[in-house]
């Protein structure tokens, strides 16, 4: 299986990364090399094997269900590129 230029552009859009035609062309060759490496997995017989999502298995630990003090809002917003009155600003989405 080999990717095409339009695949690369579609994936880049899904990943919300802007790529120029030149970048997409360069990525195409590299991604296809990497997929050649990954293709080796297709020939492994994995019948009856459980997927391993975590080294130690088990279930997700949940914390006790009780209210907790939230982190400080000002501190959490201090790195925002654009903000106003305690809100994050983004380009207008509703006319």
């Amino acid at each position, binding site marked *: 299986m080999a990717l095409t230029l339009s695949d690369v552009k579609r994936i880049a859009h899904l990943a919300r990364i802007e790529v120029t035609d030149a970048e997409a062309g360069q990525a195409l060759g590299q991604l296809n090399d990497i997929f050649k490496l990954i293709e080796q997995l297709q020939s492994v017989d*994995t019948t009856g094997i459980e997927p391993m999502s975590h080294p130690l298995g088990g279930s997700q630990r949940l914390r006790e269900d009780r209210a907790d003090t939230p982190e400080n809002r000002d501190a959490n917003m201090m790195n925002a590129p654009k903000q106003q009155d305690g809100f994050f600003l983004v380009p207008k989405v509703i006319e």
Partner: protein
Amino acid sequence: MFEKSVAELGRALIAREVSAVELARLFLERIESHGHLNAFRDVRPEVTLSQARAADVRIAKGDVTPLTGVPIAHKDIFVTRDFYSTASSRILENYMSPFDATIVEKLGDAGMVSLGKLNCDEFAMGSSNENSYYGKVLNPWDKSAVPGGSSGGSAAAVAARITPAATATDTGGSIREPAAFSGVTGIKPTYGRASRWGMIAFASSLDQAGIMTRSAEDAALVFNAMLGFDSKDSTSVDRVAEDYTRSLNLNLEGMRIGVPKEFFGEGLQADVEKAVREALAEYVKLGARLVDISLPNAALGIPVYYVIAPAECSSNLSRFDGVRYGHRTTHNGDLIDMIKKSRSEGFGPEPKRRILIGTYVLSHGYYDAYYIQAQKVRRIIADEFQRAFRECDLIAGPVTTSVAFGFGEKAADPVSMYLSDLYTIPGSLAGIPGMSIPCGFGAKNRPVGLQLMANYFDEARLLGAAHRYQQATDWHLRAPPAAKK
């Protein structure tokens, strides 16, 4: 004084032979005089000296740990209140965290004094430290060689005696490979031992913090303060605290060291093989017995890793959108344009490449064929380790196929760079502890590392076996020319 180990510095501080402030000044001067290595990303003497003064107050009151007043530096993948936290990426340029990573906090609580933040590959993605937005790090042994990656700044700083210890992280080999290339001791613990809270995420089911020092004894001392359960990390393992120094005087008589034949096959350079075989012979002299073992599917670790790690990375790095923090484009456009441009300008080529691979393998129609299949092969590899550990107590072999390569040698070909982690990835996939200790020199007088791996939660024995080797040899004490000034 800068040649002293963590253990020696801790004792000298308690004996008042030196103060924490004096040590902080000494190492800050060394950071400056070794600036050409580009190991450090952010240094703030006023922060360091204030922590050192606090440590001296503790020492005066007798409120001490073996680490109080001892300097350390943190890989710039751990967030810190007092220094920039950038993951060596443009997308987090000048980012100041509102909190400290748990590990930074724990080492600070023990009284360690932070010298600042260390350069690394962008988002810990790389094997040569050439992927940092803030420039490459030089190998103190040979300035034309890479220090290894992704924890290249940590390795170079410890090797050049700019810091006695440095935190690091390992996702597929990012502690062991740079430790081998730069001739220092590096260990990653069992997955779940070190808190991931405040460690900027790359591949969450693999990421694990560890430490680089010059000796196994020092690593054990730092682990005592650094590891342990953290309720803020959902994959943290809840076990009783243990003393990682308890087995340093391990008796090696009769210990079975498994030697995987797959780690000595095609691709392994003769100079590395020679040094590693000599290290194995040293273990035999110390009483251990070598056992031939097999990890038949270890080589599939690389394709498994390059499905799972990019998949998890594409998910983790989706948080960078130019809205809440991080780089935001100055171009005008709608919301989607703004996000796409911000990400495109902020991420370097390697994170972009991995985000694209990850997005693809997780996309509709490919999820089962790639992602689930990779997770199944991951289990096959992990099970092979468990079978091997029925026949041996530890596993030993090379860390890398060659000594450190030169700048630019692999940068243009991602696949050849990815193959650098052939021997380290299998242990990462299984989640077992692993370490690299210096065991000699190869081509161009560049360092060689011996890899030691143990079963889950067997770090104390791993450190003990490494310590015994370091008592019998002096490779770990050799200093590069850059360290002598």
